[in-house]
């Protein structure tokens, strides 16, 4: 379930449709302070099903929709993530499809939409997709800025959850 392509539009500091195609090996995202690098990490956590705005540095989900200096704001924020599934890590009903596309949309009026391979679904279905792969929204495979030391300071109970995810 390697990340192949991420498309962001109307999410945080990305008002215009922006797309990144990820390659194999090691990719580095670089740029000045405040340019939008960590917003890309937030977009990935969000499309993988993160429901707590605080873990996306926001007070409420509304903060995720682009709001410009001049008050301009798009009608919605949407993120689409295409994952490579040729190793068949996805659950059985999707195992044979080579690519999986996950999409999340948030409208200004608060309505939300989730899709897998262009078919509407519930948030649960997205979470189920990543169960047991170690790649879900809260998994140990995403380390937020400033949080790396947290792994050492966490409570024994929290550390147990990490081990259970790996089991």
């Amino acid at each position: 379930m390697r990340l192949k392509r991420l498309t962001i539009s109307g999410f945080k500091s990305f008002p215009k449709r922006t797309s990144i195609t990820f390659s194999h090996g090691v990719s580095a995202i670089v740029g000045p302070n405040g340019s939008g690098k960590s917003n890309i990490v937030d977009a990935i956590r969000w499309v993988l099903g993160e429901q707590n705005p605080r873990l996306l540095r926001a007070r409420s989900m509304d903060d995720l929709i682009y709001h410009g200096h001049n008050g301009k704001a798009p009608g919605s924020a949407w993120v689409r993530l295409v994952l490579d599934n040729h190793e068949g890590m996805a659950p059985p009903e999707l195992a044979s499809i080579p690519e999986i596309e996950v999409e999340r949309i948030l409208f200004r009026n608060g309505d939300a939409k989730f899709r897998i391979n262009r078919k509407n679904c519930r948030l649960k279905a997205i979470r189920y997709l990543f169960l047991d792969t170690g790649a879900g929204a809260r998994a140990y495979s995403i380390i937020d800025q400033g949080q790396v030391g947290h792994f050492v300071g966490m409570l024994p109970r929290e550390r147990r959850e990490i081990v259970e995810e790996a089991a």
Partner: protein
Amino acid sequence: CRDRFKNTIEQINSSLGKVFPLLFEGGSARLGLDNPSEILESGVEFFVELPGKRIRTLNLLSGGEKALSALALIFAIFLIKPSPFCLLDEVDASLDDANIGRFSQLIRQIARKSQVILVTHNQNIMATADTLYGVTMEEKGISKLISVSLVQA
């Protein structure tokens, strides 16, 4: 379930045995149960030994030592259960040049099994990446992606 949990801890510990000395010159780290008689309830402790030091509590570790120990644990888990991708946002901020070098080497090793995506300001780490993605704000407040290549200084 009990056995699986215990087994995973043992696997992580043997993997820590491989990863930890790569990040620290010597020393060791392991996971342990804080209540071994109740495996299904017990929390998990993390013990770190550094050459020539007695670590009575993880809080006494320095900023860089904490980051490096955490990375050792994360990568040790990766080696036994390779997650499809790994996304690290400026985890190198507190590391000195020598540890940046060791961290880069380990990243290269992990990248053989998993896709690694890093956010960083460090030139040395940029140099070891296969692909660079630039983010900028040509128009104030609006992020844009640009292609970047490392200029040989």
